[in-house]
């Protein structure tokens, strides 16, 4: 039998050996590229030769009105995030009443999560088209005067993308809030009700604080989706247009590099996106920590 000393050192050795393949894979295809992106963001780069230009790519981009237009699109999508969270929260509340067939409803609401953005985008394209389903509904209700070709105007197209995004988040966020509601301590509600608290008061002072962790998780997931998962949807639905009307930062990265061949700017935009997500993520963690103490 081995002595505990050598056993412990053997355990550590095996541990390092076991972790190495994952480390190698993630370093090679995520770690090194993110460092390269940092480096190439300071260069003019066409994919073959890179010329060091320092901060000029950054300063050039800060003076580019299209860049600000793109950030504005991200900002407008961000405004949709509360909707994409509150709506499912309401659904989860109703489902939590365990009405007949609630499990079937849950399955149906989550179904779009299994479908690719390409497919969702293709259906959404027909839904919002001039002769599409939505305008058909408007006509059907005698509202043909608000019939518009959503995808032909910048604001209309962004609105269509945002609505599709909100729709597709219903499943995920409903599941998150349902999970949260399953952890609620109902004895607290009863005690409060005994003390004469109103339903609204119970919701605000007892339910919401208990759900905080789930609200934060839902927020993170929703922001990540809005800013980094909509490429395929935009690619299929609008191609970023009309103009730059639906070009978000993630789509702009793709365009810069693979449509215009400006890899240096693409890398730089990638770095900006990375910092945006990191700040949101770390800020969120910090808020969570400070509230828990």
């Amino acid at each position, binding site marked *: 039998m081995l002595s505990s000393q050598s056993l412990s050192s053997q355990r550590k050795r095996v541990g390092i050996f076991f972790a190495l393949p994952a480390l190698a894979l993630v370093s*090679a295809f995520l770690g090194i590229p*993110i460092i390269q992106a940092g480096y190439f963001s300071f260069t003019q780069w066409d994919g073959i030769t890179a010329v060091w230009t320092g901060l000029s790519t950054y300063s050039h981009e800060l003076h580019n009105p299209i860049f600000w237009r793109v950030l504005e699109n991200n900002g407008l999508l961000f405004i949709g995030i509360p909707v994409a969270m509150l709506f499912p929260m309401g659904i989860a509340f109703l489902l939590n009443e365990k009405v*007949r067939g609630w499990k079937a409803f849950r399955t149906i609401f989550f179904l779009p999560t299994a479908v690719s953005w390409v497919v969702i985008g293709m259906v959404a394209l027909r839904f919002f088209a001039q002769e599409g389903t939505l305008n058909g509904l408007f006509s059907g209700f005698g509202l043909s005067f608000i019939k518009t070709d959503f995808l032909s105007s910048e604001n209309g197209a962004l609105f269509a993308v945002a609505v599709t995004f909100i729709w597709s988040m219903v499943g995920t966020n409903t599941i998150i809030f349902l999970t949260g509601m399953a952890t609620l301590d109902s004895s607290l509600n009863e005690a409060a009700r005994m003390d004469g608290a109103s339903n609204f008061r119970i919701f605000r002072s007892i339910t919401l604080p208990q759900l905080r962790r789930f609200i934060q998780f839902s927020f993170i997931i929703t922001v990540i989706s809005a800013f980094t998962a909509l490429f395929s949807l935009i690619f299929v639905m609008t191609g970023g247009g009309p103009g730059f009307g639906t070009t978000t930062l993630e789509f702009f990265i793709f365009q810069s590099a693979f449509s215009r061949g400006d890899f240096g700017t693409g890398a730089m935009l990638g770095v900006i996106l990375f910092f945006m997500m990191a700040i949101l993520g770390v800020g969120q963690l910090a808020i969570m920590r400070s509230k828990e103490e």
Partner: protein
Amino acid sequence: MKRRDIAIFLTMSLLAVVMIYPFIFMINTSFKSNQQFLGATGHSLSSWKKLFTAMPVGRQLLNSTIVCIGAISLILVVSTMAGFALSKLRSRFSALFFIGIVGAMLIPLQSIIIPAYINASKLNLLSGYWGAIFIYAALGTPFATFLMTSYFRGLPDELIEAAICDGLNYRKVFTKIALPLGIPAIVTVIVLQFIQIWDDLLVGLLFIQDPNYRTITVGLGALSAGRTTSIPVLMAGSLLSAIPAVAVYLIFQRQLVNGLTAGMGK
């Protein structure tokens, strides 16, 4: 109370129609010819027939399957090993590695895709499946490792110690004890990754250059970007491409939800 239940039921039913609408639209439209879609009445199989000439459907389904199997196998091998190491074979190195893994989960695909693409092209990984397989595997590994680590943490240390005392080495403990016990988490990883990889467009679009190796989602994206294919044909393709992931979802719903909520450290 009864009336309230009915009101909720009706609201949920209405919502269910909204959520299921794309499927109704796809099914209904795909069984129409282009003329029928544009107003003529009736249904037909002509769009489904056209789909198979517009797109090498069988080949692309096979490609998607190969890419999924390749990437998921890689993810499983490295993430179960790393998860076991980080939970049961801890050293000073583990904490640092764990932070690195969580940090890697924060990296958006778009931030690394340009350098990764150039690297893959220099390494000649773009001509077959390998470029896409490696990128998908690298993107999936951080979360899979996170999931496996938290799952293996739940296994009692005494179990491992007892096995070591019985003369098993750590490699055997991993393959004979940890892996069989880890099957629920492994299934969750498979289901999550399958849906993610099957549905992805961007990586497939860039890292698979030869059209013969295209996955079905990329094939469909390319077909729709061309804007020459009729809508019913696109809907038939969409429906077909969605079926495998939807089937996996319906069968493994519970595992998928577990995977989602595992991120909350529940």
